């Protein structure tokens, strides 16, 4: 029991560090990395907390978390590829104007 509590606290502190990275990010990519890690640690947290509270049959929630986290990441990447083209157009437009 004690070991499960300790693991819970360890994962919780990892989540806090990941959240800190997502809040205070140098680049957008850092932020996404923080969010992704936060998501995967949440999956583990739910799994461990299920065992800790004595009802481990709620692992379905952890599966949903893993899945949605992945889809969220893909949506973000897609958004990037989409807006990156636009920003490049903006940049070339600016260069045209300056030249």
């Amino acid at each position: 029991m004690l070991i499960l509590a300790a693991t819970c606290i360890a994962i919780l502190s990892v989540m806090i560090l990941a959240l800190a990275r997502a809040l205070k990010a140098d680049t957008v990519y850092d932020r996404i990395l923080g969010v992704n890690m936060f998501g995967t640690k949440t999956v583990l947290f739910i799994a461990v907390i299920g065992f800790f509270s004595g009802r481990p049959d709620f692992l379905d929630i952890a599966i949903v978390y893993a899945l949605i986290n992945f889809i969220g990441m893909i949506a973000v990447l897609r958004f990037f590829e989409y807006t990156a083209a636009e920003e490049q157009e903006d940049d070339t437009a600016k260069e045209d104007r300056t030249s």
Partner: protein
Amino acid sequence: MILETLSIIFLVLGAFFSITGAIGLFRFPDFFTRVHAASITDSIATLLIIIGLILRTDFGLIAVKLLFILIFLLLTSPTASHALAKSARHGGLLTMAETRDDKNKEAH
């Protein structure tokens, strides 16, 4: 009893690797090194913690679900990290060494 001890060992190792990865994520100097640090928590820490939990079940439906989570996480999170690093690279983000080189060139 053996299972219990094994489970404790796996969980402790898993927690240790998670924390080292997280410290790396927080302290490393640039994005690519941080991806490198985050990947340790994605792979080995997940593996160890979930195996530690599987050893605590009676190897029924719950163990199967845990195995499903494990496979899913091992497939998706390295893929996500890879795709992210790739799109950062394509988006023009430089590694620390490269930025230093650029600055040196400008100085010359």
